């Protein structure tokens, strides 16, 4: 058996290995380039009070905060909502909301009906802030530290599992950094 006749087999086996790994990956998940970068600036009216403004500064008021992108039309947000409520009740981390491409009455109604886990919700009617934050699939949740730097982004609903395995350890780490 001459070595060069084995080349196709070897290349092929490498490819099979690659595909085997590929089966475990999700090709539609795109990591955010904003990780470890300062959170994009925004200044939007508050969802409940159009006179009041919510801006990036609120995210720097805490050692660590969550910034959750949601909408009343989003089915997966509905699914994620109970967990957010639970988090809000524990009072562990403040949750700020970005109400993305929604209608104001629909959004307020949604919160009234299901409960409002948000310390404040910014109202992004046009979705411009969503674009700046690189939002592509609602819900998305960003973890922001006290310097206003994005440390992590959860794409899709926040779950108990993601919280325990990834986000909570990260939050503890951020708290430890800041002493």
């Amino acid at each position, binding site marked *: 058996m001459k070595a060069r006749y084995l080349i196709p087999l070897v290349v092929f086996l490498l490819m099979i290995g690659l595909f085997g790994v590929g089966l475990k990956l999700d090709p*539609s998940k*795109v*990591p*955010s*380039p*904003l990780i470890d970068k300062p959170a994009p600036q925004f200044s939007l009216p508050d969802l409940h009070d159009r006179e009041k403004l919510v801006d990036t500064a609120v995210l720097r008021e805490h050692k660590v905060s969550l910034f959750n992108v949601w909408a009343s039309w989003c*089915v*997966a947000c509905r*699914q994620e909502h109970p967990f957010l409520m639970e988090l809000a009740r524990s009072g562990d981390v403040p949750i700020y909301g970005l109400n993305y*491409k929604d209608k104001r009455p629909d959004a307020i109604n949604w919160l009234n009906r299901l409960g409002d886990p948000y310390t404040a919700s910014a109202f992004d009617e*046009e*979705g*411009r802030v*969503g*674009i*700046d*934050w*690189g939002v*592509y*699939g609602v819900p998305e949740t960003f973890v922001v530290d006290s310097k206003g730097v994005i440390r992590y982004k959860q794409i*899709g*609903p926040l*779950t108990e599992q993601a919280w325990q395995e990834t986000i909570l350890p990260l939050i503890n780490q951020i708290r430890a950094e800041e002493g």
Partner: protein
Amino acid sequence: MKHLTVLAALCLLVFWGSVSVARIDTFVFDNPQDEQRFKKLSAELRCLVCQNQNLADSNAELAIDLRRELYSMIKAGKSDGEILDFMVARYGDFVLYRPPVKPTTYMLWVGPFILFVIGAVALVMFVRRRSDDVLPGDELSTEEQSRLQGLLEKQPAGKRKQR
């Protein structure tokens, strides 16, 4: 795991909905050059929500928003480079259908050229080896010809145990 299924189902909805109905913009451009640039850029940027479509062909909400963003940036006189940087800063290299040249994509961009060179060198070496002594005139050698003949004709089963 369950939410993944829901997510997949949602994606599917978004995807079918996006493919099937043409959402056509009615932007008005200052000049044909800008219109061309819009077409080129929206064709080279990938829609993130869809399965595999560019901004131009996609009808997902996000794609419509991004086309509007693209249009206003062109209107504002931004260069192609600035516009692409804007997109990459938000969504990463994933939005570019023309992958940027960087260490991780060297093999992608240089690979075809290397393959071509390997192929060409192999071809030349092979042909040189074979062209050492060319005997003009004979097509198939007589021996080969009779063997071909023999094989094509039906022959008794026993005779075919040649190696």
